[in-house]
């Protein structure tokens, strides 16, 4: 892969890296035909971000230069701490950098960042990468019942009222209004801290669609990176979400790039109790109040099957409640025969009797069950939650489906 970014674009690229650094410690690079994707996920796998730069963004973009040799563009990941300093002093870079060339040197396992600066100075950074499968998350944003679009300034004005240390906020939506408020875990805990609440009305949004009244709780801290990126470029931000437990996504779109942040939301504890798997099950299930992890990352070419082997824990999730993807994956298969899609479209959500169990587990895999995802325009979040070698949506599902009793 080789690409060239001209002066102003370097600043944008740098801000994107900054936004990603607010979430995760590693950057996944994925050069594709349709653009270069930078992705990251946080350590508890409850937040995912992706910045996809289309070929329009670059002065030159060649995803796979060795096509005659049959070399595929390599997918790899870099340590955030190595990449971030390259784009740290935004204003300095903007004045001095004429262009930046990024290329991947496969024999040496290096990603090369070359900054061509004024006065003939060239700065070259060779960063070692780790080859891995693409980090991919699936989130059928178009199936979400609730959609909001607002100018970034509006959202910036809202989050400023919440202290920077405030982790979780609850966003409630009804036909009449949208409320943002500090999240309290238990009634009693509210005594300790300050509670902030504010309300917005439909006419303040550029687009307001409420398919289902809901209240979702997510971590605000992880969203701030995207919001400040959007505010720098005055881009509108759109948000898609469903009910508690379903992930919430935030999107910023432009001609040259598309950015997504997907955050898990807390499941509604009221729905929790009747449906949780009994403790006797072969999985120490996560405690209701914690955010559920929806993304699994597969690392290394060694993984040939869906990376949900029993007992395996992705190292980065050790800090969070134990989440055994295998159990939930099996349950998912049991609930839905392959091909059956638990529909998230608005009308179905309202009319289909959905059991709490379905609800929670569906949220865990982010709608990975959908099989017809390839047909529409939001294929910007490609393929499966657990990247398989085949890259086929339906492929993995069918394989697993065959194992269903």
């Amino acid at each position, binding site marked *: 892969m080789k690409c060239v970014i001209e002066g102003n674009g370097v600043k944008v690229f740098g801000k994107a890296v900054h936004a990603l650094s607010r979430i995760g410690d590693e950057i996944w690079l994925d050069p594709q035909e349709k653009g270069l994707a930078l992705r990251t996920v946080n350590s508890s796998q409850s937040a995912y971000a992706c910045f996809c730069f289309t070929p329009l963004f670059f002065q030159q973009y060649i995803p796979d230069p060795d096509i005659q040799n049959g070399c595929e563009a390599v997918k790899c990941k870099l340590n955030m701490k190595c990449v971030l300093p390259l784009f740290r002093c935004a204003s300095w870079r903007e004045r001095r950098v004429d262009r930046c060339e990024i290329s991947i040197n496969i024999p040496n396992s290096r990603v090369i960042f070359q900054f061509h600066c004024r006065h003939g100075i060239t700065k070259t950074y060779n960063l070692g990468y780790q080859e891995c499968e693409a980090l991919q998350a699936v989130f059928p944003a178009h199936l979400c019942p609730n959609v909001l679009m607002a100018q970034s300034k*509006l959202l910036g004005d809202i989050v*400023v*009222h919440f*202290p920077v240390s405030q982790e979780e906020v609850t966003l409630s939506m009804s036909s009449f209004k949208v409320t943002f408020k500090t999240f309290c875990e238990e*009634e*009693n805990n*509210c*005594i*300790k*801290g*300050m*509670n*902030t*609440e*504010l*309300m*917005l*009305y439909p*006419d*303040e949004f550029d687009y307001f669609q409420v398919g289902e009244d809901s209240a979702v709780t997510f971590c605000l801290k992880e969203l701030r990176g995207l919001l400040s990126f959007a505010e720098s470029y005055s881009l509108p931000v759109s948000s898609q979400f469903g009910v508690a437990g379903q992930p919430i996504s935030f999107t910023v779109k432009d001609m040259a790039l598309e950015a997504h942040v997907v955050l898990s939301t807390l499941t509604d504890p009221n729905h929790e109790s009747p449906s949780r798997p009994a403790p006797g099950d072969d999985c120490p299930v996560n405690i209701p109040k914690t955010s559920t992890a929806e993304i699994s990352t597969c690392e290394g070419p060694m993984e040939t099957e869906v990376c949900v082997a029993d007992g395996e824990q992705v190292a980065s999730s050790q800090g969070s409640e134990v989440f055994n993807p295998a159990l939930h994956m099996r349950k998912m298969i049991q609930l839905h025969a392959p091909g059956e899609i638990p529909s998230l479209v608005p009308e179905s959500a309202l009319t289909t009797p959905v059991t709490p169990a379905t609800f929670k587990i569906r949220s865990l895999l982010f709608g990975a069950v959908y099989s017809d995802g390839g047909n529409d325009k939001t294929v910007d979040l490609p393929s499966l939650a657990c990247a398989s070698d085949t890259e086929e949506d339906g492929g993995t599902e069918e394989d697993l489906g065959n194992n269903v009793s």
Partner: protein
Amino acid sequence: MKFRAKIIDVGCLNHFTRVVNTVSRLTKACVLRLTCDHLYFVLSGRVATGGVSMWCELSQVNFFDEFQLEGVSADANEIFLEVAPENLSRALKTAQNAKSVKIKLTKKNCPCLTLAAELPSLSSVSRVVTHDIPVDVIPRRLWHDFREPQMPDFDVSIYLPPLKTMKSVVDRMKNLSNYLVLEANLNGEMNLKIETELVSVTTHFKELGNPPWGDDGSQSSSPTHRDPDLMAEARVDIKKLQQFLTGQQVNPSRAMCNIVHRRILHLIFLHEDVSLQYFIPAVM
């Protein structure tokens, strides 16, 4: 018990915010005493605070457009609340361009001071941001702990040098020593001294002026005049002095200190509608 108040004027709001910011830099928790005419932020000297105490008095009518109070009882028409001023500061911070700010005492899961700021917004209706700040109501039997401190029987009272200068001197001295001696006399002279094994540093200020409290400029019960050149001193923890000087967001119209020789340093900052007193005990 009821309390409701409203600020409409932007200038009053900014001024009130600055006072709250100052208080929040001095202490993590304090008592807010509300009466019909005044608000007080009180910190009573305890071992936990290192003996430091604070009394900040605001005249309510200079800040609030509306102010209604119903105290604990008819004969004790006051409310005492324990609050973290930082919460109040944070709530006010983003309300600086509000059309109005309402503060009232409410009961959510616990007693709260609810601050509702009406902000300008794009829609036809103003955006209202509500902050619930948890407070503890202090029962009447404990009110005596938070009485207005008596003016101490000081030996010398003197106006302070310009705060900025004093602050930069104290900042540098803090790097050298943990304790600072402040001494002053009735001739308008003040010295800030530190002394360690390796070094001693003294900064001299002259012609500061002494506030005319009484005929002789001191409140000592004995009628004899005090020798104007005689210094009264207090050795204090330098961090506490620095904390006080750093926290000031409002430039006072009058800044002075009273020294009780080797006992207490009493700092007084006066502004038109706010007075702030800070007591730092002397250490040996």
